């Protein structure tokens, strides 16, 4: 008995994990992913509920309108990520992490307080482009497939190598001719795009959307997917995302203890499996 809705959530988890993985691959601990995810979803939610022309005539919301939402959300977050990334990526290590946490919190508070974005209740009754979870599963799978393919390509491109170099030793990389500012910015913008695209689809899937998506918990949990899954290759975050999203759901039978078990996994994982479950093969 396979729960397709759970599968959709797992795919979403894998996507968000990849979004966190990209900057990490360039040595940047950015916790901004939930922020861009929320923005993507907000664009979709606003457009689909406030612009009736996009509604179309069918029962279901037209796929073309979903594409339109993507075409709007992606450049928007790309621009935002570019503008934010320029100053923020100059920060190192924990400072960068905290700066991104702060940004996401500011976004969350602003959105939650503003009636235009639905205030605390959020935006609801978001139209559905698919009748059942199968459609969403397909859509998310396609998005995940594209993203994974991109990440795989990255492994062999010079850009991917430069990211790894920066992660190892940014200073040395710069002295060897790597424009680390540019590379880090690219990783950051790409990660924002992935998160926003996921957000667009998620807003429709969840039927309602509020800034509660942008929570600190969410960003650390996604980070945990990457760390536990393995952060050296893209398979790690995908695996981590899939498995760890499923875990609390699978643990539902034990009721209230499940989050504690989840916490135990996050607590003990780095201690016993520091490299993550999927490790890069060593020559």
């Amino acid at each position, binding site marked *: 008995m396979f729960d397709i809705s759970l599968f959709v959530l797992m795919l979403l988890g894998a996507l968000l994990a990849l979004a966190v993985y990209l900057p990490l691959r360039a040595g940047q601990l950015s916790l901004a992913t939930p922020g861009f995810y929320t923005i993507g979803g907000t664009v979709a939610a606003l457009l689909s509920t406030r612009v009736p022309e996009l509604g179309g005539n069918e029962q279901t919301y037209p796929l073309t309108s979903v594409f339109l939402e993507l075409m709007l959300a992606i450049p928007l977050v790309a621009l935002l990520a570019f503008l934010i990334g320029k100053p923020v990526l100059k920060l190192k290590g924990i400072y960068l992490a905290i700066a991104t946490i702060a940004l996401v919190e500011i976004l969350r508070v602003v959105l939650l307080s503003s009636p235009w974005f639905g205030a605390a209740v959020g935006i609801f009754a978001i139209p559905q482009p698919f009748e059942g979870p199968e459609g969403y599963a397909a859509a998310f799978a396609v998005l995940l497939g594209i993203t994974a393919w991109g990440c795989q390509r990255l492994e062999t491109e*010079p850009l991917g*190598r430069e990211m790894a170099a920066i992660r*190892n*030793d940014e200073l040395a990389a*710069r*002295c*060897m001719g790597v424009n680390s500012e540019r590379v880090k910015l690219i990783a950051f913008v790409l990660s924002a795009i992935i998160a926003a695209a996921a957000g667009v689809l998620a807003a429709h899937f969840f039927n309602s959307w509020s800034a509660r998506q942008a929570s600190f918990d969410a960003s650390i949990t996604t980070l945990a997917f990457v760390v536990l899954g393995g952060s050296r290759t893209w398979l790690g975050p995908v695996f981590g995302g899939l498995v760890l999203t499923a875990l609390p759901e699978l643990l539902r039978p034990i009721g209230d203890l499940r989050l504690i078990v989840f916490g135990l996994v996050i607590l003990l994982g780095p201690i016993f499996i520091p490299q993550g479950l999927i490790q890069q093969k060593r020559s």
Partner: protein
Amino acid sequence: MIGSTSLELNGLSVRFGGLQALDQLSFSLQQGEIFGLIGPNGAGKTTLFNVITGLTAATSGEVRWQGKTTAGLRPDQLCDLGIARTFQNIRVFSDLSCIDNLQIAMGCNDRRAALELLGIVELQEKGTHLAGSLAYGEQRRLELVRALATKPQLLLLDEPAAGMNPVEKQKLQVLLNTIRKQFQLTILIIEHHVPLMMKLCDRLAVLNFGRCIAIGSPQEVQEDPLVIEAYLGRGA
């Protein structure tokens, strides 16, 4: 080849808060020479490297490379202009293979060229090995050819002989002379091992407390009373 393409320091000073790390350094390198920097620890030698490679900004004065000032240029830009370096504490990319270390420096995918460069320092067998798994001396050699892989005209070496035994030091000396000719390099080298520097360098500058207290041929510098005082104390 007569060089106008050389490194010039004009009144270069660097101050960190209360500490004067470099004080009015002014000298030039001749194209193709091996120029040595010696001096006690903390004399400012690595700081000079950091300024030349764009990691640290000068407080006053300037560095000129190929006739133009380097002020405001990023390290990667300076690398593109032909300046490369190694580091006092080894900074190879440990999680990447030796070949990848070189490919990053080369800026393109060229395994053949990478292996050739590795061959110069007898590391071609370890091409696919992770840089972090190499022995200390091997990592030093890797760092050297990685710098070479950026196709520099000026090579800055920060204590390349550290941790080497006499045999290795000898090989290094031969190697440096070879690559100087082969790659048409100007080499600026920091080292503590004075006999090596005497044999290797065309000229030397002695730094103390950020100031250049002597500059000239190894012979001249060796006999300079200020140098003797700095190294051995007064009345030696």
